[in-house]
């Protein structure tokens, strides 16, 4: 499979990227692990690919109560990141380790994956539970969007044309917090049939789920089984809605008990 003819621009700076992305059918290319497959399937047929892979925007910085993750940080880098060692943030590295495979984790980027917005992508559940926000930049300036307001549908986000995710900002959890992620994967694609992230902190517990609907979402507070019973859930030939609902309830228990364990280790 070979992508349809396309032009290519290697962005040399963010400004350069914004200028190139002003073209109607232009598409930003980060690591390529989501975009190249859809180019090959010709599901996406941009006129221009703007390669932002060389723009830096990579690595983690901790300070002032938050961890800032460059949009082009790879899954492999998240797996190893010392900035994410606190038990409250443990789910990030734990989840990164389970994404795709070695080759995909070496290339695939956090920002690229979020912008792609696959409804069964793992990491959004973790970042939602942790209350992350995204820093977006365009020619017009910069804005912060909570991840909870970022996804609007399958493969759809609030990103405007010519706008890029530059940073993912995760608040550092208070001492005594713990987090964990549990999922059951489709055996062929590796994507989550259902995935639940749990964040346990002194103020309470937050759960977020993926693979269940149009996009990952935060569960309403309270008993997860009850919350799931009133949630509209997607089903297909691999996993009907009722099966996914049951799976998610079990995974919520598993994620919660692992997160509580992390929290106890922390205190």
């Amino acid at each position, binding site marked *: 499979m070979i992508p349809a003819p396309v032009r290519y621009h*290697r962005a040399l700076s963010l400004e350069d990227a914004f200028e190139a992305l002003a073209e109607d059918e232009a598409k930003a290319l980060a690591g*390529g692990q989501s975009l*190249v497959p859809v180019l*090959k399937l010709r599901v996406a047929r941009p006129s221009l*690919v703007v390669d932002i892979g060389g723009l830096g925007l990579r690595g983690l910085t901790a300070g002032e109560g938050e961890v800032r993750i460059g949009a082009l940080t790879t899954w492999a880098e998240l797996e190893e990141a010392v900035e994410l060692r606190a038990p409250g943030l443990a789910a990030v590295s734990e989840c990164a380790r389970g994404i795709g*495979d070695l080759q995909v984790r070496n290339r695939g980027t956090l920002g690229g994956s979020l912008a792609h917005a696959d409804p069964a992508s793992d990491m959004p559940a973790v970042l939602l539970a942790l209350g992350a926000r995204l820093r977006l930049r365009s020619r017009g300036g910069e804005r912060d969007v909570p991840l909870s307001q970022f996804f609007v549908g399958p493969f759809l986000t609030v990103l405007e044309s010519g706008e890029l995710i530059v940073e993912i900002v995760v608040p550092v959890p208070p001492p005594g917090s713990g987090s964990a992620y549990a999922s059951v994967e489709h055996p*062929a694609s590796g994507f989550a049939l259902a995935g639940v992230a749990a964040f346990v902190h002194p103020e309470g517990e937050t759960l977020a789920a993926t693979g269940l609907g149009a996009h990952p979402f935060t569960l309403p507070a309270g008993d997860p089984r009850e919350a799931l019973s009133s949630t509209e859930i997607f089903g297909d030939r691999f996993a009907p809605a009722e099966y996914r609902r049951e799976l998610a309830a079990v995974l919520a228990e598993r994620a919660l008990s692992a997160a509580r364990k992390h929290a106890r280790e922390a205190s």
Partner: protein
Amino acid sequence: MPETLSLVVNGEPRSLAVEPRTLLVHALRDGLGLTGAHVGCDTSQCGACTVLLDGRAVKSCTLLALQAEGVEVTTIEGLARDGELHPLQRAFVEHHGLQCGFCTPGVILAAADLLSRNPDPDAESIRHALRGNLCRCTGYQPIVESVRAAAREVSS
């Protein structure tokens, strides 16, 4: 319109003209004659096209060739040194780590990435690292044994 791609392949600087839509695996095979990177599934699942980019295993069917501008690519052809097989290659021969051999270049390069980060991996770490490499003949056990044997040789 073709563009010029310059990169280092198996230690040698190379330049070639590629279309923007050309995948790295095709640039290596058709442009440079390095047919060790195989096109297996062509859907980013099987890992037969795995090469090292600056030492890290990637699927060359899931990258545009132009994304490899300026990087160092190692294919299976570049693993042996001065006519001596790489310890992984030797271990695969000695421990029956292959039957038909189609997946082998990719498996060995993914294992090379693993050993560069973790010189003494246990069987579970090896299986985790090779999850993106499908083999339809050996059943994986001899592959895991081969990687273990290579790790022992390198660390001894």
